[in-house]
């Protein structure tokens, strides 16, 4: 009798504990309201335009072979493990056996083969197809020559194994596997619905969340994907991505309690100081893999083709003023091209740029005199930037820093589309540009100074630099490769190939009751790790 009572008591107790645990879990799980500074172009990754806000939505609803933890470290994703051949050209991934699309259909290697072919099919005109160019035949396929099925990817072992053949070894290949261009595509629904597979009534995804509703310019709603292999570890019920282009409005909505996270970018540069004072726990800033620099046009006949002029212009700039006064700490001053923070890589700069200002100015004046310019015979420069208050403030400040050298600067500001079209054509002397990394590797920045690369707006060209870059590309050992890249960067900085100015800082507002958010260099924050305090 006694035993029965205690057994009953235990049962009752455990039942009540279980129900308690259940209710508390329910209270914890919530829908996350996230503000994003722009709108997703499409759930079809081949149609994506490349905004940071787009990457956020896509990484929450899809998952590649490799995924990221809150700090940005790599973890197995759709693949449980992988091997690379000795020559570094063949990667074999084993697909997770319980990986499923949100309709319960298993994710197989065929979905990856199909997705990558879709990305490279010229008919789909993907802006980001070049990310997969390291794969055998990828570039040729995108150029319309061989058929997409000649791509160097294979589904083996009944779709349980995905094999990739590369043209050359790619040291950052695992990192590349987290990019949206390497996501799988639900072959079964694309074949069924065609381009309508992305419609909210048809869409299936393989990530922790899946979209249910999309009002253009307003919000995208997603719910937790119950078929996600790790669904039990996902705390949120769903996420609403609020598209808020106006960053002042973003802050108002965060302050009004309508948003839990304001991301990419959470607030305008001008509000950094006041937010740090009024919402110190919510305001997050962290180094980010992005730079801000001035391009120097080095095409023949340009005054900036003269090394002395390039050097003088760079020497005369007071980067501390740009960072502290104009950007109020929302950017960091730099004299290197690659932002710091890439593990194992030491950004290179020109030592002359760290001399005291008075010395630099003196040297700059002398250099300009040698080049034949002085306040009496001024150098007339056209400085181009895309219309934006912050860009303008920088341009005005820099042109006044150049004044003592005898430089008369004319500011040409145009909207972004015209700006980039003009500088791509070489229609400028000096121009504003910036770059945010596609993947966490210095090569992604340094390629911007290689001969003939489309984004090398200033047409800087140095054989030795190109050779170092090629050597680095063929080196599998990370340490050695970074050394070669460091040499290349040093060379370009000694050539004054560009004027490095600032490195970017990520700006986010995060509710202090949120767990699982870690500031990181890529500013990637997969929501599957996010939860609320109890």
């Amino acid at each position: 009798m006694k035993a029965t009572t205690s057994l009953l008591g235990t049962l009752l107790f455990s039942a009540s504990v279980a129900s308690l645990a259940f209710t508390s879990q329910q209270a914890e799980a919530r829908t996350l309201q996230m503000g994003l500074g722009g709108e997703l172009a499409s759930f079809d990754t081949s149609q994506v335009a490349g905004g940071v806000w787009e990457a956020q939505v896509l990484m929450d609803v899809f998952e590649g072979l490799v995924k990221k933890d809150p700090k940005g470290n790599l973890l197995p994703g759709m693949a449980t493990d992988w091997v690379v051949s000795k020559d570094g050209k063949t990667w074999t991934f084993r697909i997770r056996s319980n990986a499923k699309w949100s309709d319960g259909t298993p994710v197989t290697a065929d979905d990856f083969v199909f997705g990558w072919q879709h990305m490279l099919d010229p008919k789909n005109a993907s802006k980001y197809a070049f990310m997969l160019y390291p794969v055998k035949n990828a570039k040729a396929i995108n150029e319309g020559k061989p058929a997409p099925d000649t791509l160097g990817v294979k589904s083996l072992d009944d779709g349980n194994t995905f094999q990739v053949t590369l043209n050359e070894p790619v040291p950052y290949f695992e990192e590349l596997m987290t990019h949206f261009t390497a996501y799988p595509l639900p072959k079964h629904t694309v074949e069924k619905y065609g381009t309508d597979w992305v419609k909210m009534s048809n869409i299936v995804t393989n990530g922790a969340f899946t979209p249910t509703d999309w009002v253009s310019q307003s919000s995208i709603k997603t719910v937790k994907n119950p078929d996600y292999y790790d669904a039990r570890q996902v705390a949120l019920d769903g996420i609403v991505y609020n598209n808020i282009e106006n960053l002042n409005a973003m802050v108002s909505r965060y302050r009004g309690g309508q948003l839990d996270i304001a991301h990419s970018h959470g607030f305008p540069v001008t509000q950094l100081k006041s937010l740090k004072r009024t919402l110190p726990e919510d305001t997050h800033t962290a180094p980010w893999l992005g730079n801000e620099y001035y391009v120097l046009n080095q095409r023949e006949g340009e005054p900036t083709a003269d090394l002395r002029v390039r050097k003088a212009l760079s020497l005369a700039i007071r980067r501390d003023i740009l960072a502290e006064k104009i950007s109020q700490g929302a950017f960091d001053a730099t004299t290197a091209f690659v932002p710091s923070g890439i593990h194992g890589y030491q950004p290179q700069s020109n030592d002359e740029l760290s001399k005291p200002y008075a010395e630099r100015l003196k040297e700059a004046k002398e250099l300009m005199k040698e080049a034949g310019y002085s306040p009496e015979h001024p150098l007339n420069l056209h400085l181009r930037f895309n219309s934006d208050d912050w860009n303008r403030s920088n341009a005005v400040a820099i042109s006044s820093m150049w004044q003592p050298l005898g430089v008369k600067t004319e500011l040409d500001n145009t909207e972004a589309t015209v700006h980039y079209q003009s500088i791509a054509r070489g229609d400028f002397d000096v121009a504003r540009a910036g770059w945010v990394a596609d993947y966490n590797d210095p090569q992604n920045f340094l390629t911007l100074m290689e001969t003939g690369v489309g984004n090398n707006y200033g047409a800087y060209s140095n054989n030795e630099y190109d050779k170092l870059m090629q050597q680095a590309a063929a080196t599998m050992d990370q340490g050695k490769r970074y050394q070669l890249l460091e040499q290349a960067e040093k060379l370009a900085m000694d050539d004054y190939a560009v004027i490095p100015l600032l490195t970017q800082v990520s700006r986010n507002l995060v509710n202090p009751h949120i767990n699982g958010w870690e500031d990181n260099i890529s500013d990637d924050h997969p929501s599957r790790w996010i939860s609320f305090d109890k």
Partner: protein
Amino acid sequence: MLSYIIKRIGQAIPTLLIVITVSFFLMRLAPGGPFDGERQLPPEIEANLMAAYHMDEPLWQQYVRYLDGIAHGDFGPSFKYKDFSVTDLIWQGFPVSLTLGAWAMLVALIIGLPLGIIAAIKRNSAVDYLVMGIALGGIAVPSFVIAPILALVFGVILAWLPAGGWHDGALPNLVMPVAALALAQIAAIARLMRASMIEVLGSQYIRTARAKGLTPTEVILRHALRPALLPVLSYLGPAIAAIVTGSVVIEQIFGLPGIGRYFVQGALNRDYTLVMGVVVFYAILIIVMNLIVDLLYSVLDPQIRYD
């Protein structure tokens, strides 16, 4: 009357054709294209994009293709919002702008008309100066000043209303954008109403009405109001068309998914099809609104007959 309407619709077709043609070519004349951005595209990728959007064809062929599409009710795909067609976007955004605009216009009329009438009756008095002073302020202070202030005071400091968002048009989300939109309209309507009321009140037949011994209220409501409304009415046609096609500023600041933003966003992105779609839609709306106003004229003013 019916034949008049048919005639007007007939006239509208060439008007629309001119609007389409001019905006199509103006858009293409603007420097920069839909694929120019921060990143230079590799040439083969740019070629693929040009082919996908038929931009590799001669311009006249693109124009013919566009006209053919419109004739079949197809505004084409958006260059930027890839998962939506331009028609989808307009039909998704227009109800939002229409709801906002209709509320704002209603509020503006309910407040603006009586204010204008009162100012006219009490001409050159303290009341008149006060009303007109406020109206001048309403016109002079732009919405991009008013809207953030409203959002800050009522959305953040007092936290009475959501600082932004649409929420399927929930009332609390509507209050601030409607107020911000209505303010300038209240001012414009009050000023117009006052001016035309003063003019009407000075005319012979009002003097006759007064001489008949009618009370001031009767004079205003029965004799002065109808003719005094005519200038307001002709203002309302285009004003309604403008307000229901959305306000870029209000939509941006309150994060509302109307079509106003497409005007600016579309133009900045060189999203040719989206801009064209919105322009054509706007043109149709203006033509329709003007037609309605002209028809209402004949109701208000017996001298006007369309037969």
